[in-house]
């Protein structure tokens, strides 16, 4: 059950796809759809010769990604208009942030709900301004909103009454129940303004955020796309002066060293991200994760819901102390 390797290979080395036969193409397209990477793949393969049965599908995927990107930016603009009078920083997260800033992961990327980060103290104002502008609770009455507010890192999801689009308003990037406590204030104060006044996380924080998603639900779902984001961001920012030492500092500040370290190693293994010389030698645990992340057959099926392997990975991850290896890598990175 590891057909997703066909997708990883095509993303990493587009020319390799020219060797595929009909069955290979079928599996590649199916897996790419299932992993929400079809638009990304379509852009990666834009310049190689494609079989006539394949190119329309990839052209559709590019068109589709364009629509998705435009809609995401429009939702961001609607939120901007609703929140501008408050004068609080509004930070776009994930896919919408990549699209708004024109960052490499946004090319062909699928984007779901609009995720924004605002200072915790502004959350009530933000909530009422959004409601005044037509957003409403997805679940109105019976729902236990105290639970959400107390334990989650976001407001309960809101949906716009006319546009049917959801917004998630976060005040930090991990649930309050998580062991790590990212420094939300630092995320906000280091954020970067875009020309229209909306903001994005600083590059290093963006990578920390992408990494913390890998284990956020403990199920590694969407791992290939998540790591593709990490790969593209590291390639895009990796040559900026001081980037690697800033990344190390920010990962430490947000108590996410272990996640960031793991994300970098996995992304280097899967996508060849140039982080250190040579491909990393994976630990047994890391190999298990890689296997899990790529578990998808040629019909797009993931292995059956969370089996013991999943539980094992999760509990192992929760117990595992930062390893010597991690410290070693960080030390080297800081010196880069």
């Amino acid at each position, binding site marked *: 059950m590891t057909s997703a390797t066909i997708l990883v290979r095509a993303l990493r080395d587009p020319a390799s796809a020219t060797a595929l036969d009909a069955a290979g193409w079928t599996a590649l397209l*199916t897996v790419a759809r299932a992993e929400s990477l079809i638009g990304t793949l379509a852009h990666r393969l834009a310049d190689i010769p494609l079989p006539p049965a394949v190119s329309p599908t990839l052209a559709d995927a590019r068109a589709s990604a364009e629509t998705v990107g435009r809609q995401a930016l429009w939702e961001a603009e609607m939120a901007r208009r609703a929140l501008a009078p408050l004068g609080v920083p509004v930070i776009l997260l994930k896919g919408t942030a990549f699209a708004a800033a024109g960052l490499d992961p946004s090319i062909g990327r699928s984007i779901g709900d609009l995720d924004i980060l605002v200072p915790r103290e502004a959350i009530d104002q933000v909530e009422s301004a959004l409601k005044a502008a037509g957003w409403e609770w997805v679940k109105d009455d019976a729902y236990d909103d105290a639970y959400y507010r107390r334990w989650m890192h976001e407001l309960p999801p809101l949906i716009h009454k006319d546009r049917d689009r959801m917004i998630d308003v976060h005040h930090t990037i991990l649930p309050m129940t998580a062991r790590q406590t990212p420094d939300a204030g630092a995320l906000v104060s280091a954020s970067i303004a875009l020309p229209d006044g909306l903001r994005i996380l600083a590059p290093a924080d963006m990578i920390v955020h992408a990494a913390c998603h890998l284990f956020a639900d403990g199920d590694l779902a969407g791992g290939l796309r998540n790591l593709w984001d990490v790969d593209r961001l590291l390639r895009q920012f990796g040559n900026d002066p001081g980037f690697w030492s800033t990344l190390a500092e920010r990962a430490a500040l947000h108590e996410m060293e272990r996640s960031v370290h793991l994300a970098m190693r996995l992304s280097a293994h899967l996508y060849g991200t140039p982080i250190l010389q040579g491909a990393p030698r994976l630990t047994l645990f890391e190999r298990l994760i890689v296997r899990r992340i790529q578990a998808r057959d040629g019909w797009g099926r993931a292995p059956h819901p969370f089996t013991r392997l999943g539980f094992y990975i999760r509990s192992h991850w929760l117990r595992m102390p930062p390893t010597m290896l991690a410290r070693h890598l960080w030390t080297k990175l800081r010196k880069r």
Partner: protein
Amino acid sequence: MSRHVAMLRVGPIAFRVGSAWKGPTDALRRLYAGYPVPAVPDFTVRLEPQKRWRRWIAPSVAIRGDYQFVGAAPLSLAHGLLAAEMGMNLQMALGLRRYLLLHASAVERDGRAVIMTGHSGAGKSTLAALLSERGWRFLGDEFVLVDLVTGQLRPFPRAVSLKNEAAAVMRAEGAGDRLLFSLDDTPKGRITYLRPDDAAIARMDETARPALILFPRFGDAQAVRLVGPAEVFVRLTQASTNYVTLGEPGFDALSALVRDLPARAIDYPDGDSAVALVERLWAELAR
């Protein structure tokens, strides 16, 4: 891997249907015998047991695939063919980007087509099947595909799903030998699948120019009413599953269609009067 596989192309769209059971794919192969068999599909449909152990005990068929509907209820294995058809419809409805998709039926004559759309049960399927027995070429009974660049219709001649007594109407027309499967007690009542005639299948890659839009409604006394272009536009957006997703090319295609074509709503009490009405409006109006 799915144990049983059927591959088929309908007009410009190729499907791969995988099934945990033999029944649904066998039925598909019989219903669609002679349709082109593609090498690489546009869409994959999977018919799977809802739970693994339920492949054998009271099997319930979950409809999954490239695009799936999270809360979809499974069907019984006796309705496996319906599940396969719904799975293909779902891919079209949720995944198609290459054409503007209208939930409508269409028939063609002399290279020009009439598009018929309306609520489920308005009779658009039966009317298209009926017209195709009376000198028209059948283009499709469920989805009409409008080319985003040329505005031409691409035929999508799937098997016609006839509800309840519509099968008897088609039998009376002499199409009995193409009524291949009947499923009782489906969520939509009794469904009988009619295989399109040979010409519809042989000419599935031959486009047609849209010439008339009709909103048929079965049940009332015969009547014809003018439908204004803005209203036609809004109604067709509501009959399209991908209009909003297509963005500007969808707007261009649909606004051109609406601007250029005459449209009428027609009521009819029975098949004969419907056919007569279509012929009359065709002669008077078709562009």
